[in-house]
């Protein structure tokens, strides 16, 4: 999947299911039945993208607000996790 631009809306793939459990979450990709553990920031991002499409900037703002970190940290957390989701083909842009 190509790099997502900051102003491009992204959404969770329809082939992904997830559940929060404790402070973490589990995400399952229906293409291969692979299940992965995601941390609390990760499950927040997945849940947020599951509800509505967002740009990276909007997502970073949400993360910064929810976890009381500055925007730089929010952007870094989002970028790291979106890389992971992109690798799993769990998000789609546009």
């Amino acid at each position, binding site marked *: 999947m190509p790099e997502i631009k900051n102003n491009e809306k992204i959404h969770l793939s329809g082939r992904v299911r997830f559940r929060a459990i404790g402070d973490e979450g*589990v995400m399952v990709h*229906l293409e291969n*039945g692979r299940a992965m553990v995601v941390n609390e920031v990760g499950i927040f991002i997945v849940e947020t993208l599951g509800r509505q499409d967002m740009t990276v900037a909007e997502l970073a703002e949400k993360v910064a607000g929810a976890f009381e970190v500055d925007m730089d940290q929010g952007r870094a957390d989002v970028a790291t996790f979106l890389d992971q989701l992109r690798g799993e083909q769990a998000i789609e842009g546009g």
Partner: protein
Amino acid sequence: MSRCWGADAILIQLPMALVLIDGLSGEQQSTIARNYASFNADADDASCRCDVICHAARLSQPVGLPAERLTRNGQYAPLQRRTGDGIEIIGFNFTGSFVRGGPAPVHSELSVVKEEQLAWPSVLENFLRILMAHLVLNQGGVLLHSAGVLYQDRVYLFCGRSNAGKTTLARKAAAAGARVLSDDINLVIPEEGGYRAHKVPFTGEFGRRVENLSGCGSYPIGGLALLEKAPKLTTAPLRPAEALAGLLTGCPFVNDDPEEIPVLMDILTNFFHHRPVIRMGVGRGDAFETVMTEFLRSCDNA
């Protein structure tokens, strides 16, 4: 168009489901009876209640799908597709279907091109595995890729994908005098406030070579380990999310079905809230007794 092979039928008593296969030729019937000898049910039972009725039928032409369409994660995996009222299955040499969600008995069909193909483990066994994996969810149970070993009157499950070491461990267990339910797949069902493991006629490599437990035996589950190969024996507790992810990966045929996933997650979550689930690395040289001693110790601490 498909049509039946003959007028013979057979009853197979799977754990939690009495399966009637009809439309068989005499040869198919006798081969299945031989292959599933410990699971044959009395014909009188047919008049009582069948949970599943499977019609054996002819396919007019080979399936003809390329191997890559029937492969997932490097393993053979029949295709499953949701239809209006059920699930269609396409394998190398068969097609199958069953109704999902309706009242019992569940109606299903299994079709092959050649008469002898129907009783092949790669056909009938795969079909029954998929059927059971879905149906057992209704009862709060799961079909789990695992080796099941009876130790001190309880079954301990070693869950893992192919090459995780399940068959090696099952062989060590048998060599040490322990009983093995299966080295490949076991049925886990909630019963009497706990969980029991049921032997199923899906035997894996170990069961095809060694006569182990016969019939539909079931035993209380002592604990479950997510098994992996390791240089030496290790155990580690699992966080709930790790346990859920590991168990999900071990639930074939239903862990990629969007309609089954929510129920499957509920069932697995309930399981690890009731029984200890740990991670366990086992080395080639680790003796069975040593493995079990460490397993039990870890379960006590979990």
